[in-house]
């Protein structure tokens, strides 16, 4: 497949690795922000390839992992209503809420459907005008425009039985929180390529300037990540702290303006609780008041639902790159993909799941 296969070329990978090795003179700790990038790193064994002075830690870029517990509980509550058709991306079905998950709701007879596009949820709503159809709108900035289109279209058509349960999260505030933490060890970041495709990378310039930390916007194939690592290490070795773009085939400085426009029209920024991390101010998106009729929290009156914030869990430290999944005593024992204790083990993109699935540390050379 064009623009995919060639970015998995072994010879180019070796060349990039050699360049990285030639460049590195001391240890560096780097973080890739996006769960999809973590997945690629693990699946292709990139950390096996790069010199041992480079430590790769994994960031909170998994919207599934960070969706707040109370939103999951609200989703379960709404999905459990017999008249509701609850439509969700596949990623969310196994995420544990306080007492259940969407899979169990489905097993108990709830009409829970998986889709890979929010427009499919609209189609379902049109096909079943007599039943409320609720779409679980999660994701980072990458998914926000598409989810916004669904609501915008629903309003245009007057599709009164459609509503969306919104839980969008924004990347830059999470990175700011990380950088502000006294325990932060990350010296350079691979910025999320598809988030930046939508938003551009202007927001990271402020962070780079304020904290003197380099950012390289990276793609998702092994060559992309190796090239991004090379660019980061080059900056670090030369004492630079700038924002560069590796993923030039998809990312522009200003991002995608029509996508940003629809986000502006439909959403407003709000405070958001990140599961395992806590409240990050101005880090989420919610529907604007003029879309209240399409806001599932209002339609189903679940706004007031509060969940007891659980005690400290290592998820927080993994998500902030302070610990690796293998540092958790529960990892692989009490906490496995089939009985996950925390969200990073549930999501296919979660760091714990990626480590567990590919379990590369267990394989001798």
């Amino acid at each position, binding site marked *: 497949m064009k623009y995919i296969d060639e970015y998995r070329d072994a010879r180019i990978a070796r060349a990039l690795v050699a360049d990285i090795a030639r460049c590195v003179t001391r240890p560096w700790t780097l973080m890739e922000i996006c769960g999809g990038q973590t997945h690629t790193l693990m699946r292709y064994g990139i950390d096996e390839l790069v010199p041992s002075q480079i430590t790769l830690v994994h960031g909170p870029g998994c919207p599934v992992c960070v969706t707040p517990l109370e939103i999951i509980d609200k989703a379960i509550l709404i999905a459990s209503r017999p008249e509701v058709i609850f439509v969700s991306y596949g990623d969310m079905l196994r995420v544990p809420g306080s007492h259940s998950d969407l899979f169990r709701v489905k097993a108990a007879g709830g009409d829970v459907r998986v889709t890979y596009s929010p427009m499919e949820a609209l189609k379902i709503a049109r096909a079943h005008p007599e039943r409320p159809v609720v779409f679980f709108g999660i994701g980072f900035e990458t998914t926000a425009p598409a989810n916004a289109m669904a609501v915008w279209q629903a309003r245009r058509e007057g599709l009164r039985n459609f509503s969306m349960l919104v839980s969008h999260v924004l990347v830059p505030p999470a990175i700011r929180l990380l950088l502000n933490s006294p325990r932060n060890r990350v010296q350079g970041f691979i910025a999320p390529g*598809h988030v930046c495709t939508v938003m551009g990378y202007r927001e990271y310039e402020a962070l780079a300037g304020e904290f003197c930390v380099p950012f390289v916007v990276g793609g998702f194939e092994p060559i992309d990540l190796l090239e991004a690592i090379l660019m980061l290490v080059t900056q670090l070795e030369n004492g630079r702290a700038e924002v560069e773009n590796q993923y030039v085939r998809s990312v522009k400085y200003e991002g995608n303006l029509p996508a940003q426009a629809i986000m502006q029209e439909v959403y407003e920024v709000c405070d958001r609780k990140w599961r395992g991390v806590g409240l990050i101010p101005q880090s989420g998106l919610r529907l604007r008041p003029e879309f209240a009729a399409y806001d599932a929290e209002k339609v189903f009156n679940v706004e007031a639902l509060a969940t007891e914030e659980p005690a400290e869990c290592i998820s927080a430290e993994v998500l902030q790159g302070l610990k690796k999944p293998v540092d958790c005593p529960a990892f692989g024992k009490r906490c496995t993909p089939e009985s996950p204790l925390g969200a990073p083990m549930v999501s296919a993109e979660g760091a714990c799941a990626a480590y567990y699935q590919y379990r590369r540390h267990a394989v001798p050379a």
Partner: protein
Amino acid sequence: MCLAVPGKILEIQENSENRTARVQFGGITRPVQLDFVPEAKVGDYVVTHVGFAISLLDADEADRTFKLLEAMGMLEGEL
């Protein structure tokens, strides 16, 4: 996060509501909405996520930077 895949636009259908394209991904085709890439034409590659194109793939930029990578790869092979 953000599984987005590049595909080639084979055909564009416009109606009063939106612009939809038939996009080819290595042997399968899917309908993709072009609301966010109004400038895309047949033959262009778009990066798509959950049924929407989120960027028009810059083929020239991609070719230019990839040629550099390829040269690097060939050089390394000769060392």
